[in-house]
Structure formats: structure tokens, C-alpha cells
């Protein structure tokens, strides 16, 4: 096993050791999945048949179940990804191990990103299981363009890393409490980014306008196009959906790095690594 793989395994092992017993965690995860799928069914019945305009948008993506499933799974991946970076820092700090990390001479950014990878991978597995259940129970038809899917995933990873590092910067500098970055993300995404329903159903022009400025609106649309509509990289409507998300990722990556380093600098100045 190479050094990099060995360290990655040890980073994952440290996360697993902190979890509740595996069987209980497994049961809880399955319970969550079944509940989630049940919620999709309920939503498709209630919302899916709401209006002709809504139905036409759902049909574009192969129906309401697929639309919602991809929306929820993508949103969950983005949220978990962002939160896991901050959580990696907060956990290490509360256990007092962050000080040792800092003395190893390793660059903190790659180390923190690798430390949060385990949780992100678990979230990916969760999303895949949800899709499998949907295919089995609701015959949801996925029409994936692998190239576009990989591009959206890559852009999403950069965006998530940027936002997550910005939040982690706050925590490394000594902030306690709820993560304001993921809170703001969840607040805007849940209501106006179109996780469950297309933004076209908003009759209010202001909500429509605001949703255009919410980055996750575009991430969800691009992901749906790649996964449900088989939109290729040459598809102009897919590119129009992807571009704002790409701009957000390109802006957030350096902002996140800067914020994390500013947090580290503050930690070294204020003695956040010092144990009493």
C-alpha cells in the first residue's frame, strides 16, 4: 500500500472509530433511505400533477421522481461536502489533535480535504443507494451522459471545496457554534434553488430573479441535464446551466483558500492550537 493510500485509510479509520456502532448506523441509514424514497412518492403525487406548466418541466427530465431524486441527491452531496470539511476541522480541534496535525509539517489544506473525503464518499454511496431504490420501486429512467456528469461533478467538487474551506477557516480561527456558511447555503437552496420543484413554478418574479443568483440552482439544473436528459458537452442549454456554476466554483476556490489561510493565521496569532 502506498504512503498516500495508507494515510487515506488511516484518515478514514479515525472517522469510523468516532461513529456510533456500525450496525446501528447502518440501520439508521437504511431507515433514512426508505423514508426519503417514501417522501419522493408523496411529492410526486402531490406536486407532480400540479399544473401543466410544472408537468412540462418535469417531463423534460423524465418525470417528477427523477427530477426530485437528482435534486435531493445533488443538494445532499453539496451540503455534506461543504459541512464535512468544516466538521473535520471542528472535530480535530475539539479532540485536541489539530495541534499535532499542525506540527507534522504537512500542508493543512490537502490534509483537511483528504480528512473530509471519507464522509463525502459515504454521502455518495447514500445517493447511489437512493437511485437504486428509485429505479427498482418507481422505474425512474436515468439517461446519463457520462462526460457531462463527470464535468458537473468536477466543477461541484471545486465549488464545494471552496465553500467548505471558507467555513473551515472560521472554525480553525476559533469560531464555535452553527456553521453560518452551510446554514446560508441550506436556507437559499431548500426554498428557491428548485430542489423539489422547478423554479418556473414560482409565479413571483422576484423569487425567480433571486433563484438565478443562487449558485445551486444552476448546479441542480446542470446535474439533471447530465443525468436525466443525456445532455452532451456540446449541448448549449447544458452549457448555459453549467457556466454560472463554473464561475461560482472558479471564484470560490481562491476565496476558500484565502479564508482558510486567514483562519490558520489567526489561530497561530490567537493561540487556538494551545492546550490549557
Amino acid at each position, binding site marked *: *500500500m*502506498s*504512503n498516500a493510500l*495508507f*494515510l487515506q485509510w*488511516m*484518515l478514514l*479509520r*479515525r472517522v469510523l*472509530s*468516532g461513529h456510533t456502532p456500525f450496525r446501528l448506523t447502518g440501520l439508521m441509514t437504511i431507515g433514512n433511505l426508505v423514508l426519503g424514497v417514501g417522501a419522493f412518492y408523496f411529492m410526486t403525487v402531490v406536486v407532480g400533477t400540479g399544473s401543466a406548466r410544472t408537468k412540462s418541466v418535469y417531463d423534460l427530465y423524465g418525470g417528477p421522481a427523477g427530477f426530485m431524486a437528482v435534486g435531493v441527491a445533488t443538494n445532499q452531496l453539496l451540503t455534506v461536502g461543504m459541512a464535512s470539511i468544516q466538521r473535520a476541522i471542528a472535530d480535530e480541534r475539539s*479532540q*485536541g*489533535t489539530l*495541534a*499535532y*496535525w*499542525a*506540527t*507534522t*509539517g*504537512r500542508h493543512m489544506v490537502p*490534509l483537511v480535504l483528504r480528512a473530509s473525503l471519507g464522509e463525502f464518499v459515504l454521502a455518495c454511496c447514500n445517493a447511489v443507494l437512493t437511485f437504486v431504490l428509485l429505479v427498482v420501486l418507481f422505474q425512474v429512467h436515468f439517461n446519463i451522459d457520462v462526460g457531462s456528469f463527470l464535468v458537473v461533478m468536477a466543477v461541484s467538487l471545486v465549488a464545494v471545496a471552496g465553500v467548505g474551506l471558507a467555513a473551515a477557516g472560521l472554525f480553525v480561527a476559533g469560531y464555535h457554534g452553527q456553521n453560518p456558511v452551510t446554514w446560508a447555503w441550506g436556507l437559499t437552496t431548500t426554498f428557491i434553488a428548485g430542489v423539489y420543484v422547478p423554479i418556473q413554478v414560482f409565479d413571483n418574479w422576484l423569487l425567480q430573479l433571486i433563484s438565478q443568483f443562487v449558485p445551486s440552482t444552476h448546479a441542480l439544473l446542470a446535474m439533471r441535464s447530465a443525468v436525466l436528459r443525456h445532455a452532451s458537452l456540446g449541448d448549449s442549454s447544458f452549457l448555459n446551466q453549467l457556466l454560472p456554476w463554473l464561475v461560482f466554483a472558479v471564484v470560490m476556490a481562491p476565496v476558500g483558500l484565502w479564508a482558510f489561510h486567514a483562519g490558520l493565521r489567526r489561530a*497561530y*496569532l*490567537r*493561540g487556538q*492550537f*494551545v*492546550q*490549557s
Partner: protein
Amino acid sequence: MSHPQAVTEAVAPKTEVMVIADPGPEHDHLIPVEAPDWKPNPHTLIQAHRLVKDYPRPRGQPPRRVLKDVSLSVGQGRVHALMGLSGAGKSTVVAMLAGLLEPTSGEIYTHGRPVEATELRRLTSVAAGHDNGFYPRLPLIENLVFFAALLGLDRKRARHRSREVLDLVGLTAAAGRTPWAALSSGQKRQGHLARALLRHRPLLIADEPTRGLDPATEQRIVDLLTHIKASGQSMLLVTHDVHLASAMADWVSIMEAGQIIRSASPGDLLHLLTATRIYLRFGSDPGPCLERLEKLAHLKEIHSHDREVHVYSTDPETDINEVVKIIVEEGAVVSHIDLPEPGLEEVFLKVIAERKHHMQARLRKLRKEALRSQAGH
């Protein structure tokens, strides 16, 4: 255990590798740190020069100064003991030398050149003096393997080195299989020391390595530290344990209220004891006795703090009879009386008591001046 000198050679610039005989802090202290011609010593492994640390306070309030002009040095292969009561600022100094806290002002040098925090993190290894810093549910050996992986060791070497350091600090394989949270406080001290030994760094900082240990384990740790010292490893020993400092240190600094108030070799510190201490703990107000104690024939000095009185006498065998006579005549209640053997512990207590005495006298003077000034208005 590989020789620490080899690691030093890898870290220090080539021109300075040839330095073998390090004169140690006694040489550094020949020139006062505040002198304008003070220069860092190119032969000294680590020199901290006039370190100050201020923490900001809420708007409008002046910053809180926790470290005031602290200078100390550790020579190659030397052991410097940093002693002081809790809250004296020892941990702040440790954090700075470990590269985890930036000083507000002051500089740290290695072999005569200023060193940044990032380089300090590669020069030092810290055995922390607290109970956390490990993953509570992971067995100790798995914790060590994880930290070894963080240091860049591959799987085989990480496991081998982890078992090696466990053995070095005297922990059994069974203790190694125990989750960190279930270990005793003493075993956690050993665990921290084991982790610090995972890598060879020029300076080992051991923060309270014997705190909470039973006598047998304490002796094992002292033996281990002695063995490490004999291998040429430089050490900063941060401790309350005067016996450990006496056994190990080439140089001792005593800290109080963010300052180093005494710094000398253990032998020179013992010379401070020009008088022997008679310790009295009163069960009642010592006030009436104090006036008469101050008139003792061989009295050198006297410090009192609440119901504790320290009488320093140049002829304690004569004076102790006088002291007992005064107590009886005044009808005072004494719960404890002692004439301790002179040693580093005595020096430590004397230096701290003197400092407290001076601070109290200064406070009294300031209060009097304030009252006088109020009366004047």
C-alpha cells in the same frame, strides 16, 4: 533509537553542522539580553529572545500581556528545565517554541539565525502535558500508527515505530490495545511521550512528563529521559517537579506571572540559599508573632502569606528554639513547623515567595499612594 545528532545535521545549514561543543545557556547569559550588542549565539540550538505575547481584549481595553520579555536558550545536547506555578506562562513559551503561537514581539533563533514558525514545527517535538490530543475510541497503538502515517511513514514502518516507542516508554502491548479514553492519566502521559518520540527532532519539549504518575512509572520516565539525554538529545523540560528538574537539568529557569524571574545552573541557584528556611503554618492569626519574629538575631528575611510564614535564618538551629519560644509565649496555634533540607525545591519556593512578597509590598504601596491622593483631593 537513532541518534538525534543525525537529525540536527539534516535540519541545520551545512556550515553549522560542524559545531560539536555547544557552550550551552551559561555562555548565552554572559551578555544580558537587553544589551544593545546582544547577538544570537551561532552555537546554540534554540534561543528565544525577549518574547512578548499580548492577547487582544474587547474594544477599548488594553491587551492582556501573558508573556513579558522572556528569553531562554537550549544548547545542543543540553536539558533546560522551565519551572513555575500553574498560569506562569510556561505553556505559552512551549507553544511558541513549537511554532504553534506567534509572539507579539521577540525572536527565536536556531544556530544564530532567526527561525520562522514553520521551521520551528520541524525542529521541535512536543510531549504535551494534557489528557487529550488523541482519538478517544482508537486504541493507543492505532493512534500512534495514525500519527506516524501523518509524519509520512509507510504502513510497515509506522507499525514498527509505534510498537518501538510504546516499548520505550514502558507501556505494555495490552495498554497499546486499549482505547485512549480508557487509559489512566499516567498512561496518557506516557502515550504523549511515545508520540513525541515517533520522530527524531533536534529539540524535544516534554511538558509535565511525570504529572499524575505512580512512583514506579515516574522513575521509569525519569530513566527514559536520562537515557534520551545521554544520547545527545536537547530537551526543554517544563515541569512543576523539582526532583525531576534537579535530576535532569543543566540549566533552570523559573517563571512567574509571564516572566522569567531566575535563570541559572542548578548549582548557582543553590547558592541563592544563603539562609535556611523555617516554615510555619499557623492555625490562628500570625500577626502578634510576626513582630517578634522580625527581630530574630540571625534573621535574613521573612515572608508571610495568609497564615503561612517563611523565616530565613543564617543560624536556623539557634533560631528555631527562639521561634518556638515566641509561639508559646504569644499563645499562637501552629499546625505545622518544618526545617526543609536545602535543595532546588527550596530555591524554587524561595524565589516564588520573594516574588509574591515584592508584588504584595508594591500593591500595598500603590494602595497607600492612591488613598493619600484621594485624601489630598
